[in-house]
C-alpha cells in the first residue's frame, strides 16, 4: 500500500491533495452557510480566462489565474451586493464570459492546446512541480489563516448580514474577504480536481458533514476531514487504476455524502423514536 509514497511525483501530488482537502471545505462551510454554494463554480469559470491569459502572455498560468479569479470574485460580490434584481443573470453572463474568454485566448496563444486546456479544466495533479507545491502550500496556509482569524466574524456575517452590520462588523471588507478567499481556494484546487470540479470540493464535504452534525464548528471540522479523505483517497486510487484523479476524488466525496445521508437519517430517526417513547 505504501509503495505509492516512494514516487516523488506521487509524494508531491499527495501533499497537494492533502492541502486542498483541508482548505476547500473550510471556505466551503462559510460559503454554504451564506447560501452561495455555486460561488466556487462561478469563480472557476472566470479563472479559466486567467489561465488562458497566462499562456497567451507567457506568464505562469497559476499567477494570472489568481489575479483574474480575484477580480471575478470581487465582481460577483459587487453584483450580489447591489441587489437581487437581475443578479443571477448578471452572474450567469460572467460565467459564460469566463469560459468563452478562456477558450478563445487559448486558441490565440502559441503554446496552448486543447490538451493543456483539458488539464486545467479537469486537473493534472500528477504534473505538480515542487514550485507549484510551494504556491499551493502558501495559498492553503493563507486560506486557513483567514478562517482562523476571521472565523468568528464570518460566522455572524454568513448568518445574517444586517445583524453583522448592527454589530459594527466591517461587512463590506468581510464580504470581499470571503470572496477573495474563495478565489484563492479555486486556484489552489484547480491543479488537483480541475476548474470544472473545484466547487464540488467546497460543497460536497460540507453537505456530507452536515448530515451528521448539529453545530457549525463540528460541521467545519468534519467537512475538512471528509475533504482530506476524499482527495487523498481518490488520488491513491488513481495510483492503482488509471482514471482521472479529479473525477475519482469528486465521486469519492459524493459516495461519502450518500453514506453520511444514510447514517444521518438513521440516527435522526432513532433519536426521534427515543424522544417520543
Amino acid at each position, binding site marked *: 500500500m505504501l509503495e505509492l509514497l516512494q514516487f516523488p511525483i506521487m509524494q508531491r501530488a499527495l501533499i497537494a491533495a492533502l492541502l486542498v482537502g483541508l482548505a476547500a471545505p473550510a471556505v466551503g462551510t462559510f460559503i454554504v452557510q451564506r447560501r452561495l454554494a455555486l460561488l466556487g463554480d462561478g469563480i472557476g469559470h472566470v479563472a479559466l480566462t486567467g489561465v488562458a491569459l497566462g499562456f497567451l502572455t507567457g506568464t505562469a498560468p497559476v499567477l494570472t489565474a489568481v489575479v483574474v479569479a480575484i477580480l471575478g470574485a470581487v465582481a460577483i460580490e459587487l453584483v450580489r451586493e447591489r441587489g437581487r434584481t437581475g443578479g443571477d443573470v448578471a452572474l450567469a453572463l460572467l460565467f459564460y464570459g469566463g469560459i468563452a474568454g478562456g477558450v478563445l485566448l487559448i486558441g490565440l496563444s502559441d503554446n496552448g492546446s486543447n490538451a493543456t486546456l483539458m488539464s486545467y479544466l479537469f486537473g493534472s495533479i500528477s504534473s505538480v512541480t515542487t514550485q507549484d507545491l510551494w504556491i499551493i502550500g502558501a495559498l492553503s496556509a493563507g486560506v486557513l489563516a483567514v478562517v482562523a482569524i476571521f472565523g468568528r466574524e464570518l460566522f*455572524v456575517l454568513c448568518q445574517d448580514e444586517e445583524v453583522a452590520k448592527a*454589530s459594527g462588523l466591517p461587512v463590506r471588507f468581510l464580504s470581499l474577504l470571503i470572496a477573495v478567499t474563495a478565489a484563492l481556494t479555486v486556484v489552489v484546487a484547480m491543479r488537483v480536481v480541475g476548474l470544472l470540479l473545484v466547487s464540488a470540493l467546497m460543497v460536497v464535504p*460540507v453537505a456530507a458533514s452536515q448530515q451528521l452534525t448539529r453545530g457549525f464548528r463540528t460541521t467545519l471540522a468534519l467537512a475538512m476531514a471528509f475533504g482530506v479523505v476524499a482527495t487523498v483517497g481518490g488520488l491513491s486510487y488513481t495510483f492503482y487504476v488509471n482514471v482521472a484523479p479529479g473525477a475519482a476524488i469528486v465521486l469519492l466525496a459524493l459516495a461519502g455524502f450518500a453514506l453520511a445521508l444514510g447514517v444521518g437519517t438513521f440516527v435522526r430517526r432513532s433519536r426521534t423514536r427515543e424522544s417520543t417513547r
Partner: protein
Amino acid sequence: MSQQTVFAMTGGQVSLEGRPVLRGVDLSIGSGEVVAVLGTNGSGKSTLVRAMLGLIPLSGGRTELYGVPPAKFRDWRRIGYVPQRLSVGGGVPSTIREVVASGRIARQRRLRPTSAADREAVARALVTVGLADRAGDPVHALSGGQQQRVLIARALAGEPDTFVMDEPTAGVDSASQLHLAETLATLVREGRTVLLVAHELGPMEPLVTRAIVLRDGRVVHDGVPPQPVGVHALPGHEHVHPHAVSPECGPLTWEPGPPASKEVPGA
C-alpha cells in the same frame, strides 16, 4: 436617570426600489423608554427601525444613534438588534449556543479567545430565555417561537443598553409570547431602552411606555399608550380595556386618555 437621546430622526425619508416607504419621520427616543412602533403591514414599521440603525440608507433627512450618524457610529456594543426572521437557517446547522454566543461579537477582539465573561453572558442569556437545557441542539430543529427566543438571547448576550426588536411576536405561540413579555419586563426593570416593532402587543402591552403608530410611512400617533402603566406593568396582570391605539386609528379618530407626554411632530 438622565435622559440621553438614543435615537433621533428628523425628516427621515426612505425609498425602496423607487417606492417611498417613509415620508418624513421626526422621532426622538430617550434612554429608558420602552417604545412600540405599531401599524399595519406595509406602513413602514420595519423600514423605520432598520433606517434608524443605518441598515437602510435614508433618501432624505437624517438620523442619529446616540448623537452620531449610523455610518460614523462605533459603539455598537450598546445596541442589540433582534431581526424579524430567523436567517440563522443558513445552509449549515448551528447550535443554539453558537448562535447566542455570536451576540458577543461587538465586544470581542480579533485573535482574542472567548473569555470567561463571554461564556457567563451567554449562559445568562440562555437562562433568561429558558433554553439553557437545549444549548447544544441545532437551531433549525426549534419551533418559530423558540427560534425567536434564540434571537433575543443573542441580543441579550451582547449586554447592550438598547434593544431593537423587529416583530418579536410575529408567528410566535402564546407560551413564547408570555415568555417574551417576562424577558421584556426584566429589561425594563434594568432600565434598558427598548424599541420594538409589533403588529399587536399582546402580553407586552402593559410594559410599553410609548406607542408610535405609522400609516403610509408617516407618524400618525406618538404618545403614551391608552392606559397608564403602574400596576398594569406587573407580569401576569390581566386587564381588559378598549384598544384605543389600533392600527386603524388616526390623529382624528384617536381620543387620548391621559395627556400625551410627547408632542407629535409632523402629524
